[in-house]
């Protein structure tokens, strides 16, 4: 039980997917202008990554390993994730238009989020079983959500400040992200 909890804490905080593994930077910088939109993206990411790590783990353990084809994991995972996002989108459109509208463009955007593929690949690399993979996926996605909401909060405040001209726009955002990454290094003390 403790080890399972540790997986969530590790993936969410200590090995934060954005701030210490530098995955999913594009959406991290692109969709962090407003807290509301970044929270929507975070919700969609939690949903998709948890689901895709589950499916990827099953596929790896029951198809690729028995057939001795583990080197195909990258291409197979890409296929599965893209299809999964499609199905999830169709399902949401049919069953709950409200959630579908709230997530909007962010759901298809996740297909190209390298964090999703990254998690699936890291899981098999670390030799996680099904439960561990799902938890690792969930933790990673929560970590991503925490990071992007924090950055959005900072950016909303920066918008109201007189930033020196050379730093306006992308530079100040990158600096903030760098400082956040340094701050998140503090969590490495939690590692056992």
């Amino acid at each position, binding site marked *: 039980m403790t080890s399972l909890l540790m997986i969530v804490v590790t993936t969410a905080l200590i090995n934060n997917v954005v701030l210490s593994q530098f995955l999913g930077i594009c959406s991290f910088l692109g969709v962090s202008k407003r807290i509301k939109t970044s929270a929507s993206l975070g919700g969609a990411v939690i949903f998709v990554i948890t689901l895709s790590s589950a499916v990827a783990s099953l596929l790896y353990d029951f198809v690729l390993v028995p*057939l001795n084809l583990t080197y195909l994991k990258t291409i197979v995972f890409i*296929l599965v994730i893209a*299809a999964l996002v499609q*199905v999830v989108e*169709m*399902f949401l459109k*049919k*069953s709950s238009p409200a959630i579908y509208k709230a997530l909007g463009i962010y759901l298809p955007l996740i297909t190209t989020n390298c964090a999703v593929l990254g998690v699936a690949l890291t899981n098999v690399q670390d030799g996680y079983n099904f439960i561990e993979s799902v938890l690792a996926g969930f933790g990673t996605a929560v970590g991503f959500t925490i990071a992007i909401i924090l950055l959005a909060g900072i950016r909303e405040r920066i918008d109201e400040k*007189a930033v020196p001209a050379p730093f306006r726009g992308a530079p100040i955002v990158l600096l903030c992200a760098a400082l956040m990454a340094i701050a998140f290094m503090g969590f490495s003390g939690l590692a056992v």
Partner: protein
Amino acid sequence: MQGIIIATLVVAVIGLIIGIALVAAGKTFHVETDERVDRVRENLPGNNCGACGYAGCDAVADAIVRGEAPVDACPVNSQEAVKKISTVMGVKSVEIVKKVAFVRCAGDCDSTSEKCNYVGINDCRAAALAGISIWECDYGCYGFGSCVSVCDYDAIHVKNGVAIVDKEKCMGCGKCAAACPRKLIELIPEGKKVAVRCSNHDRGPDVKKVCSAGCIGCKVCMKQCEHEAIQVEGNLAHIDYEKCVGCEKCAEKCVAKIITEL
């Protein structure tokens, strides 16, 4: 060799299963939509600028089909596209007049000067909220570019302290006009030749003191105009575009040179 075949087969089979699953899912989760929505949507610009007041082109297409919005709800649409939408909806087409935005201020850094040293938020609306007038003229363009930030077409820019519209790029959506806290931006029917580049309502001598490019309300333009298209109200010339024929006599005689070509 065998390895390659097995690998290809496995990926192909996985792809096939996923494909079949997607088709099945597409059928199961198919949502019935009004096909008119798609056809109306095809005739909208697709920039999702939001000038119509709806969340985007998809939303306004939906509203047009449901009859909540008129066929010309999109302010930047062409006459041709409006005709097509009318055909889809089975209603009579309406004439639309394309408009371009125009900034009624010529008070750049050379013609007027700064009254105070403003260090607040770099946004016209913020400065206006604080009740601050940065330039000597209390009517003119702040020059922080609130209009620039809302423009989806890269058609308005601040040059030398005053916003200028690039009429080639302007689609006439009117978002800049709504953003300007001093209501300096007017939508003028496309093809009109002249416009008054000032919004100062003060008396002539007072205008002269604060800006060298301001309307002094001398009424020369009013006397020149043979079509009664220009009225000077509150010490400021105003052109009625319903009556203006574009003879440009007013622009020729304008003492302050603030009636200019668009």
